């Protein structure tokens, strides 16, 4: 069947750009003053404006989880969030998980250490999202078993297929962490 679509919409408003505005984002405890348009996603704000490229873009459609960050301790897809909506919130990215110089393994977050120990990555591109998602998962406190972890980590795709090791790493950190910590 041949459908005929009009070559041009009947009336189209002239393109118009919405002006940028100052936005202050608190990222890893530090305020960042950025000049952003309302259409800038939190992901692009982090990567292109705050130059924190640890948060990854894998699809820009909320389908892969590579852009997962923690906002007020809760994991979200930063590509599905507009930066202007997050003023006043506590945004935590992979760059903020370690305390002090990450060259010293002691300073790494236990989840980061477990990912290294279990080789829970290959190319490393989904890794920051996986780690932030895993920390968010622990904050939620719903995962009780290995299969819970697998189900609740299924919003983070790892094309290298490191899943068994990712689950091992998270399970280990969960077992080390006291229940009400």
């Amino acid at each position, binding site marked *: 069947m041949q459908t005929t679509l009009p070559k041009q919409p009947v009336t189209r408003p002239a393109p118009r750009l919405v002006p940028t505005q100052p936005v202050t984002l608190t990222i890893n405890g530090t305020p960042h003053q950025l000049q952003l348009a309302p259409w800038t996603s939190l992901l692009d704000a982090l990567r292109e404006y705050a130059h924190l490229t640890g948060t990854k873009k894998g699809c820009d459609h909320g*389908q892969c989880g590579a852009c997962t960050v923690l906002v007020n301790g809760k994991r979200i897809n930063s590509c599905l969030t507009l930066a202007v909506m997050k003023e006043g919130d506590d945004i935590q990215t992979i760059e903020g998980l370690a305390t002090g110089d990450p060259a010293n393994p002691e300073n790494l977050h236990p989840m980061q250490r477990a990912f290294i120990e279990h080789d829970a990555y290959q190319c490393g591109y989904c890794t920051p999202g996986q780690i932030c998602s895993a920390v968010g998962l622990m904050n939620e406190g719903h995962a009780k078993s290995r299969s819970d972890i697998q189900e609740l980590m299924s919003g983070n795709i790892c094309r290298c297929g490191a899943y068994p090791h990712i689950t091992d790493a998270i399970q280990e950190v969960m077992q080390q962490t006291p229940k009400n910590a």
Partner: protein
Amino acid sequence: MSNYIGKPLSRVDGVAKVTGKAKYAAEFDAPDLAYGYVVSSTITKGRITHIDTSEALSLPGVLSVITHENRPKIAWLDMSYKDQDAPPGSPFRPLRDNKISYSGQPIALVVAETFELARYAASLIRVDYREAPHETNLDTNLHRARKPKSGLASLLKPPPPKPRGNFDEVYAASSAKVEGRYSHSPEHHNPMEMFASTVVYEKDDKLTIYDKTQGAQNSQLYVTQAFNMSFSDVRVISPFVGGAFGSGLRPQYQLFLAVMAARELKRSVRVTLTRQQMFTFGHRPATIQNIALGADSTGKINAIYHDAVGETSQFEDYTEIVPTWSPMIYPAENVTLDYKIVPLDVFTPLDMRAPGGVTGVPAIETAIDEMAYELGIDPLELRLINYSDRNMAEDKPFSSKELRECFRQGAERFGWAKRNPQPGSMRDGRNLIGWGMSTGMWDANQMPARAEAVLTVNGKLRVTSATADIGTGTYTIMTQIAADTLGMPIEDVMFKLGDSDMPLAPIEGGSWTAATVGSAVKVVCEELGKKLFKLAQKVPGSPLAKAKWEDVEFADKHIRLKQNPVAAVSLQQAVDQNGGAAVWQKSTSLPAMMKQKNYARAAHSAVFVEVMVDEDLGTIRVTRAVSAIAGGKILNPKTARSQIIGGMVWGISKALEEESVMDHSIGRFMNHSLAEYHVPVNADIHDLDVIFVEEHDEIVNPLGVKGLGEIGIVGMPAAIANAVFHATGKRIRELPITLDKIL
């Protein structure tokens, strides 16, 4: 000699990866960076009759819209667009003219001050087309199948050998016969990182390019040729690659467009593709195969027929090795093979993890399972009856092949002996349980490569080679090899890669990097060691003054006598002897052709899989799988295991999930997103077990390694398909096995 090789060391780049410090192509900043956004063709074939960029250009902040109408001059000859992995034909040239050759073809690049603005402006480009009829369906175009053109690429991918014996006669007389048609859909690599190039415009018109690639020097070659630039003016850097799986073996079009824009604007430009655009270049080609096997009543397979037809583009002849795997695994005396391609209105296919291998092997290994049922012989037993220590495609013995031991250990770990062969005989409630198995195989190749090693004035070792680490562990294993060769602690050794300024290395693919670059690292460290030994002999009062090279060893940062370790000179003393300068060496490693030429060289695997199939819903889960791998020497069991696990996940994906679904009426891949292009998520993956059966092989290369990038995937799809048959009695020969094919 330190002892890192063979140890399960954590990755040396681990901290960088878990802290977000590892930088990928789109993450390098440059002053005054502009952003490019690609406009893709919405038709599959035809001509652009009009392209209106005025509205986009009217927006403040939009810097340029480059189309075929206003693009700067580029190289004229096809030769100038040939990269190291180009198949015979005319490479695709972005923005060459108004001709559209496939759906999603890049037709314009919008460059703007911000990414968001470029993206919006791209939506304002108006394009009129004159459409022409297209053909994208392999199945309905099989009558157009033809032999591929040969070219340089044919050296690595030779056509199948000529017929041997008399297939027709022997097959006709066989007491057991099976015949089948096997097919799979196209697939796209879909690494997590989307293709991106950040082109930094330096003074004197030089370019520093951060590119997503499996070969920084391949991208450099491409840019210098296409834009008529000198090698000294183009540097390509790629320290981290967010997955590639073959997609980075050829420069992709964002590189060309970003370079063109940067040169035109005399400004740094970044172009990142969208996930949708990740479906607009190379892919694993749809392939249709026919197999016929004839055996005698003892199970000896005497006759093999195996043909394959794959798709290619209208402009290049992409090929794979497909039917040749049959005689590489099974030693039948009467063999007829055939391989053809059909040009369609799609982009040229591109090597994707185990190209050809994970096409041909699953087909033959499913046919073998069918033969096992035809004969009433256990599938493992049938494979042992037809076991061969010779590769009959080349008629050479294998340099090593511990597949028999893989079968034994894998079967034992899995519990294969407890299998009831009757299909549908095992169940757990509503779930039908199936057990299946398969052989896997992949070439063990080695290419020439160069490396440089420097012992710095403060006694640290820095080794470089222009190879890549796409998650495979290159950084880590090269550091281990270097540390062991010069007896240094791993903390004092740094291996760097991914820079076109570094010594020559081939594109990272074909499971050859450990063998190729590993050998170069070993050689250069040995030769650096000889220089250090000479310096150590000159140290005043040196206990090694009269020693011979054969008498010394490198250990604990010292050169010492093997017979009397107390007689030692430290590496620091040796480098101090060099008059305040670092000691350096650059070396080449070449495959030992004379040693290798009389042998077939390959990695093997035995794969055992359990599936559970929901009787009512038809959903399939791989509940456990065991892969026993004969892959030569294992340099690092930790990263090696990850590679095999990753390959197994890919095998599950290929068998059950992934396919690029083409709507042939419009010639476009319809499921071009990660929501609709299904790959396994965490909850899809259950108990995966890896066994390494080590092989001692002095022929394959100086390190005895065979490479592990592909062998993990090859055996999985047939093992799963065979398990599905065992569970359900349904023989599905068309991958992926989705639930609609079960119900």
